[in-house]
């Protein structure tokens, strides 16, 4: 149970692609302004710049791919160089890599640390308690999920009073519970308090320092930095976004189109696109397709006000994904006019925008008229979700034959 709980609070923010995730070097710029102790170094966009950074550091360096994934070490995205020339050569290799199918556009060149101990420090939202939770472990380095599985007892957690602050004594207690002694207690507590200030200031959903390094000469340094910001709070952080000069979220063309329309869009590996209004209904429609032996390619939630124009736009976006072999539109409308939607679909079909079979199920005003228009155009209009799901599966299978 403990593991599941830890996994839940820790996994949530890692996974979705909807948080604005900062690159390590961007996160460290913020860390720096809060006085967080960091290794010497800086960002580079070319092998030549990497060499310059290595010269500035003046000792052996780590050359680290900047990628928004926890797996970059395993992918060979973190390497060590003894000289600026070596750093330049490694930078050339790393900048040619793709990690998680995304190109590496920048690298961070930092002093190579002499490690006494690797530690984990993080703060995230615990959705079940609806509070922030501070997490620490004296056994860092590996991912916290692995740690939760292998030695959950070594993970220290402390919820923050949602009406107050993380207090200094609480931060010290975390450090003590993690097993630190003497002067280390205050240094580590100070670091947690800085991390908390960053969380509060930047509407952070998740921040992690993994590893936080205790060096052989007894200093704590944030060797890595992960910072995900609540998308819904970006209006409070306009300056940060301006300074970043990049898209806040990495999206493909279809995801961008859907986001611009205020629709939720997720690609899956089946072949039936489900276009519905409302997240729960869209999920239930995907599930119904699977009950009848089909597999969804697309989760497309049109959101509120599913009128004719929105449905057409949704179909247009869904058609751009080459896995789609059939489309199921399922609208639970109150005031949506089915005849309007039907006319829109028929005209889109006549324009040649829709090249795969389409099944419609709608509940709303003028259902019968909508049904008549679609049936005349040879587009199945069905009364229930179940019938519609069954029909679209048959049609998608027909496309295979």
């Amino acid at each position, binding site marked *: 149970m403990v593991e*599941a709980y830890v996994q839940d609070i*820790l*996994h949530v923010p890692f996974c979705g692609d909807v948080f604005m995730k900062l690159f390590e070097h961007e996160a460290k710029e913020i860390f720096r302004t809060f006085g967080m102790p960091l290794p010497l170094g800086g960002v580079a966009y070319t092998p030549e710049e990497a060499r310059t950074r290595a010269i500035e550091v003046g000792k052996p360096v780590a050359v680290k791919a900047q990628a928004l994934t926890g797996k970059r070490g395993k992918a060979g995205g973190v390497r060590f160089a003894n000289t600026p020339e070596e750093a330049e050569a490694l930078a050339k290799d790393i900048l040619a890599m793709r990690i998680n199918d995304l190109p590496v556009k920048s690298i961070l060149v930092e002093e190579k640390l002499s490690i006494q101990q690797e530690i984990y420090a993080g703060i995230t939202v615990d959705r079940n308690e609806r509070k922030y939770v501070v997490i620490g472990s004296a056994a860092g380095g590996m991912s916290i999920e692995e740690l939760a599985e292998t030695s959950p007892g070594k993970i220290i957690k402390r919820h923050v009073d949602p009406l107050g602050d993380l207090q200094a004594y609480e931060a010290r207690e975390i450090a003590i519970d993690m097993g630190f002694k003497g002067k280390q207690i205050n240094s580590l507590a100070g670091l947690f308090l800085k991390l908390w200030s960053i969380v509060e200031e930047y509407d952070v959903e998740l921040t992690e320092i993994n590893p936080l390094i205790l060096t052989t000469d007894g200093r704590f340094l944030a060797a890595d930095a992960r910072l995900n910001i609540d998308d819904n709070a970006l209006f409070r952080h306009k300056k940060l976004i301006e300074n970043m000069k990049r898209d806040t979220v990495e999206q493909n063309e279809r995801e961008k189109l859907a986001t611009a329309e205020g629709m939720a869009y997720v690609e899956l590996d089946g072949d039936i696109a489900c276009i519905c209004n409302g997240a729960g209904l869209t999920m239930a429609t995907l599930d119904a397709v699977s009950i009848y032996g089909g597999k969804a390619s697309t989760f497309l939630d049109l959101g509120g006000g599913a009128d004719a124009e929105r449905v057409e736009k949704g179909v247009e976006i869904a058609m751009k994904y080459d896995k789609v072999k059939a489309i199921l539109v399922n609208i639970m409308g109150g005031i949506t006019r089915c005849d309007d939607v039907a006319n829109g679909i028929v005209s889109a079909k006549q324009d040649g925008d829709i090249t795969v079979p389409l099944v419609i199920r709608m509940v709303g005003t003028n259902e019968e008229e909508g049904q008549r228009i679609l049936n005349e155009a040879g587009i199945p209009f069905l009364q229930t979700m179940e019938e519609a799901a069954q029909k679209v599966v048959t049609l998608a299978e027909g496309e295979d034959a």
Partner: protein
Amino acid sequence: MAVLIDKNSRVLVQGITGSQGTFHTKAMLDYGTNIVAGMTPGKLGEEVYGVPVYDSVKQAKREMDVTASIIFVPAPFAGDAALEAIAADLNPVVVITEHVPVQDEMRVIHVARAKGISMIGPNTPGIITPGAKQKVGIMPGHVFADGKVGLMSRSGTLTYEIAAGMTNANIGISTAIGLGGDPCVGLTTIEAVKMFSEDKDTKAMVLVGEIGGDAEEKAAAYMKDHVDKPAVAFIAGRTAPPGKRMGHAGAIISGSTGTAAAKIAAFKDAGIPVGDKPSDVARLLEEIL
């Protein structure tokens, strides 16, 4: 009776002069909701469909004795609007607004809890009590019929789908509560279960859940030991891949937790049947009632 909202509720609409606020004020009035005041700062003296508008919640309470609030205020200001309603002791406070920052949500949720106030949402379609003709929300009223089943759900249109299926099967609803689609919401599934379990006009319950978090598992465990009333569940997202947000901010499988399978297993362990499709809910209710 019913829960949260009944014919004695005197409802305030915060953000009444905005387009959503105005549109749904009309729809709620048409349904029969007892809306007695609206509020938008700086608009004192205006009227929306005959409803007087005030500058503050305090004013509206003093002049019109409002008891409950529904909030249509844009996300950046929704947290503050909810705090204002809570400060005036309105109960329940229904936050329709989507995309409220999670920091604001956490603060408001705990301020409401400390005062014993039920905050519904954010990101909810609201509450409806068909028997009293009261809806404090944005749902299409005509799909909900009066009856004895308490319905609670984390989604909007899926709830309408299930309610419509129940209505077709002549099964009515005491109250339907939209709990909200965000990871952090005020009234939780387990709290809604407790309300329905104490309500003498509710004879059975329907729980409509979805992937993400552990609200359904907690509710199921509670029901196993403490609730005698029969219940039926439905969980959306059986085929959702891990790590992807499925439309709702809260609908995400995280590692091995928050899966539909875990939730379905928890309900089955509590002896609560789970429908495979939304239409199964009405059928299962017919079996147990």
